[in-house]
């Protein structure tokens, strides 16, 4: 029973893992976008080419391990709240030192409001560049590794 449950969960878990990867890229990009001069690497102004490069590269690589187009789209959307969460955690990280005297909801609003252009940008970037990755995957005939491949092959071609 557990094996069958795991087999059923493999596909959503795989999509969630890829969405988490995209969300990590998005969350870091948002933090860099909002606080470019305290990020690593530090810059006086946020570099849009660098941000687009990070998001596009992550989307292409994610597309290379994505199983199909619907999964690509779902992953792209699921990555947005994950990105918000990661950017929020980074922005509130100084509170661990005990010296940040602001409310968590204010930080969250700050990260959502100032990062909003990137969240909007991430949706088409994840979809389009994810599709590019999917096409490359098909071109080179990549298949899911055995440890990630669903065993319920009966209902699939």
């Amino acid at each position, binding site marked *: 029973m557990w094996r069958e449950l795991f087999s059923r969960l493999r596909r959503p878990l795989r999509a969630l893992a890829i969405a988490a990867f995209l969300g990590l890229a998005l969350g870091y990009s948002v933090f860099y976008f909002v606080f470019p001069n*305290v990020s690593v690497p530090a810059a006086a102004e946020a570099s849009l080419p660098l941000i687009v490069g990070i998001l596009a590269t992550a989307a292409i690589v994610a597309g290379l391990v994505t199983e199909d187009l619907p999964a690509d789209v779902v992953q792209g959307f699921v990555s947005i709240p994950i990105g918000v969460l990661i950017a929020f955690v*980074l922005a509130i990280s100084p509170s*661990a030192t005990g010296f940040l005297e602001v409310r968590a909801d204010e930080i969250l609003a700050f990260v959502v409001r100032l990062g909003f252009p990137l969240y909007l940008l991430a949706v088409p970037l994840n979809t389009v560049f994810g599709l590019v990755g999917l096409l490359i995957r098909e071109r080179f005939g990549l298949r899911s*590794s055995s440890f990630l491949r669903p065993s319920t092959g009966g209902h699939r071609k």
Partner: protein
Amino acid sequence: MSGFDLYSSEGRPDRPIWFIIAAMTVVLVGLAIGSAIDYSSIVVAKATVSFEPTTTRTFQGTESNGSLTPDGSLTVSLVLAVDNPSTRTLHLQLLAFSLWVEDGPAESGLNESRRISDAFLSSPNGTRYFFLVFVGSREVSENPVPAGATPTYTFTYTLSRAVNPARFAVLRNITDFWASTAGDVGAASWFHWVRLTLVIDGVLPATSPTAASYLRAIGRIDREEGTNLVA
């Protein structure tokens, strides 16, 4: 859609791509953790850095009762002990300093005109007037403030007839008053106010004129000590 259905067991496994994802994840997590540490250290610096100003007044060229002669001068040594418990190195950038002396002649009604220009403190016991002896701000380029250290910096201010005749004349008038009424120039109350701007090392200033204000201020620490009588 069938073109994207890649469950077929034929073809090459995508395991190497997962290694690429793992490597990129490690890099992104490293950048994120580095950013969080950098940001936290800046917040800690902005919250914990403080300074303690100490002033030492030296009158040169005085009469026997302590009042200033026309060729005398007042030299004030301002010593700043900057306490930097953070892990960031700081640079002194701007120093503003003001010093007031209690204006006895104005308080006693001997000089009504200075009551208009003097700063004052009102209390139930009456109004006290203070003459501005030194005022000004300047850029400073001293040795940096190391992380976890409390270095001291000394700045000297001099007032004499050659430097500012009008202000020196008032100071002479005030020292004459206190020397003749209290027998000691030191009987007058003195107030100082110091504002210090420090820059956190390694934080690039936002260059764009349209940059958000928090980006311009995030690398700067402003502190002030003392009583600003004109505020």
